[in-house]
C-alpha cells in the first residue's frame, strides 16, 4: 500500500490500470457488494493471467475495466483517465478507440462477413481508416488465417476461426488495452494452443496491455504474471496477488 502511494507520481504515465477501493453491486439494494477490489495497479504493456473460481467476479471486473459497468464506489483509472469523470457516451467512445474485448464465444455478428465485422470496430471508433482491408488482412495472416476468410459470413467459420477473427477485430484499432475472457473454453486442445500462441505473440509485438481471464490453469504458462482473483479482491495490495 505504502509503496504504491509513494510511486504514484512517477507511475502516472506507466500505469495502464489503476483501481482504488472499488465496489460493485449488481443490485443497488444488496447489502454486500458482488465485487470488492481495494487496490490494483497494472503497468502498461503487461500481460496478466487472472484466474479464480466461478463467481469470484472476473467477468464483473472486465466489465468495469471496459466501462460497461460503473463501480458503485471507488475510482477506476485506465491510462490515467478516471472513468468516473466520463459520461456513458464518452466511456463507450473510449472503449471503441482504446480497448479491445474478446469473449468466450459469440464475439461476432453472425450474419455479417468477417470483413464487415472488423469494419464495424473501425466504424464505432470513427477512425474511418482507408487501409482497413489491408490491416485486417495483415492481422488475419498474423493469426494464421487465409485472406479468403474475409468475405465469409462469420456464422460459416469454425469456433476456433471465429475466436481468431474476434482477436483481429479487437486489435484492429490498435488498442492500448485488451480484455480477454475465457476465449479458449470452446476450443479443443490443439486449437487452444495455436490460439494462445498467436494471441500472446501479437500482443507482445504490439506492446498491448492484456488482462486474460480463465480458470484453466494450464494457460498460466503463456504469461509472466498471474493473479488469483480471490487475492485481488481481499488483499489491500496488488503485490500479494502476483505470483
Amino acid at each position: 500500500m505504502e509503496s504504491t502511494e509513494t510511486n504514484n507520481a512517477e507511475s502516472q504515465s506507466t500505469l495502464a490500470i489503476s483501481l482504488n477501493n472499488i465496489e460493485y453491486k449488481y443490485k443497488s439494494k444488496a447489502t454486500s457488494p458482488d465485487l470488492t477490489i481495494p487496490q490494483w495497479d497494472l503497468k502498461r504493456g503487461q500481460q496478466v493471467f487472472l484466474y479464480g473460481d466461478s463467481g469470484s467476479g472476473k467477468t464483473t471486473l472486465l466489465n468495469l475495466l471496459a466501462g460497461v459497468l460503473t463501480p458503485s464506489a471507488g475510482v477506476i483509472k485506465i491510462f490515467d483517465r478516471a472513468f468516473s469523470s466520463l459520461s456513458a457516451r464518452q466511456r463507450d467512445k473510449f472503449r471503441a478507440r482504446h480497448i479491445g474485448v474478446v469473449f468466450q464465444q459469440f464475439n461476432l455478428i453472425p450474419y455479417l462477413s468477417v470483413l464487415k465485422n472488423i469494419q464495424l470496430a473501425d466504424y464505432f471508433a470513427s477512425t474511418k481508416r482507408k487501409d482497413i482491408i489491408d490491416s485486417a488482412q495483415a492481422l488475419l495472416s498474423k493469426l494464421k488465417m487465409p485472406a479468403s476468410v474475409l468475405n465469409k459470413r462469420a456464422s460459416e467459420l469454425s469456433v476456433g476461426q471465429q475466436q481468431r477473427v474476434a482477436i483481429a477485430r479487437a486489435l484492429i484499432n490498435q488498442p492500448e488495452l485488451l480484455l480477454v475472457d475465457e476465449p479458449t473454453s470452446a476450443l479443443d486442445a490443439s486449437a487452444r494452443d495455436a490460439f494462445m500462441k498467436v494471441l500472446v505473440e501479437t500482443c507482445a509485438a504490439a506492446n498491448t496491455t492484456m488482462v486474460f481471464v480463465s480458470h484453466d490453469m494450464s494457460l498460466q504458462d503463456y504469461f509472466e504474471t498471474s493473479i488469483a482473483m480471490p487475492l485481488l479482491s481481499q488483499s489491500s495490495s496488488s503485490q500479494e496477488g502476483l505470483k
Partner: protein
Amino acid sequence: MTLFSLAWHSLGSRRKSVVLTFFSLLISISVLLSVEHLRLQAKESFNRTVSGVDIIVGAPSGQLNLLLYSVFRMGTPTNSIKYSSYQTLKNHSLVEWAVPISLGDSHHGFRVLGTSQEYFQYFKYADKKGLVFEQGQAFTGMFDTVIGSDVAKQLGYKLGDKIVIAHGIAATSFTHHDNAPFTITGILKPTGTPVDKTVHTSLAGIEAVHLSPRQLRNILEGNTKEEIAPRQVTAVMLGLKSRLATFKLQRDINNTNSDKLMAILPGVAMTELWQLMGTVENLLRVIGFLVLISSLFGLSTMLLASMDQRKGEIAVLRILGAGPRVIFSLVLLEALILVLLAIAAASGLISLTLYLSGDWLASHYGLFLSGHLFSTDIMLAMLVILGATIATAIVPAIEAYKSALHTVLSSKL
C-alpha cells in the same frame, strides 16, 4: 461499414419475417396512397372538366344529374328542352353566348354530342383553356364531325374518314344507321377531359340520324332542299355578359313558362358533388389509415419479437463501443428502411396500375387520372406515414435501448 449497412444486413438476416412484414406494409401503403391520389385526382379531373360556363340549362331533374350528363357525359339525359328555348336564351340580353348540346347517341362506345360551331369557340376547360384543333377545323356541313383525341387514337381515325353514328349509347347499338355516314373534318388536341372521348356533330346531323330511312335517303340523294330543323336539345351552356347577373338569370330561367327549364351553376353543382363524395372520401381515408396503423403494429411486433434473438448482437455492438442510443437508432432505422422501401414499391405499383387502367377509368368513369403520383399532398401523406412509423417503432427501439443499457458483457449467453 455504416449504421445503414448494419441495419440492412440485420434485416437481411431475418428475411422471412421481414419479407412478410414488407408485403403487409406494401399493401397498406398502396391502399392509403391510392385513396389519397384518387381523391385528389378525381377532384382535379372533375374540376378541370368545365370552365368559363356560367349557367347550364336543361330539363328539370336534379342539378347533379344535369351536371353529370351535360359535362361529364355520364348517365342518360331524362328529358330534353325545346329548340326554341335555346334560341330564346341565345337572344337574351344578359347572355353573351349560348352553346346547345344534344346527347343520346354513340359511336363505338364513344358519346356523340350534337352542338353548334360556337362550341369550339366558347367551351373552356381547366384554367379557361379553349379547344384546339390538332388537325382540320370545326364542322360546317350536316354530316361533318369533329372527334376528340382519344377517339382518333383508339379507333385509328384520320381526317376525311367516314364514320357511322348509332342511335343509343351502348357500344353495340341495335339500330345502326348505316346509311348516315359522317366525315371527319377535325381532330381535337388532348384535353384530359371527356371532350377527348366525344364525337361532335352538328345538331342537324343528330336530327338526321333519327329520321326514317326513307327521309334520310331523300336527304342524302339531295332530293329535299329543306334544311333539317332541330326540334330539341338536351342542354344549353351559357356565358353571361356580366357574372353579376348570374343569379337573376338563373331565377328567370327557372320561372320560364314556355318550357320546363332548370338552370344550374356548374360551380355550385360541383360543390354539391364534393359534399356528397366528402363523406365517402373521409371514410376511405380513415380506413386507409387504420390499415396502415395495423401493418405498422405488425412491423413493431416483428422488431420486438426479434429482440430476444438479438441480445447477443446487441452485446457485440456494445463491446465495440456502440452506445444505447446507437442501438435505439439502429432499430428505428430498420423500421424506416422497410417503410421507405414499401413506399417506393407502392408508388411504383400505383403508377403502373394507373398507367395500365387510365383509359378504362376515363371511358367508364370520366376520371382522367394523372400517373404522376408525387403531388404535394401525396408527399405530405408519405411524411405522415413516416411519422407514424417512427411513432410505432419507438416501442421496439426503446426495448432495444433498455437491453443495451443493461447488457453486461458475459461469456454465458
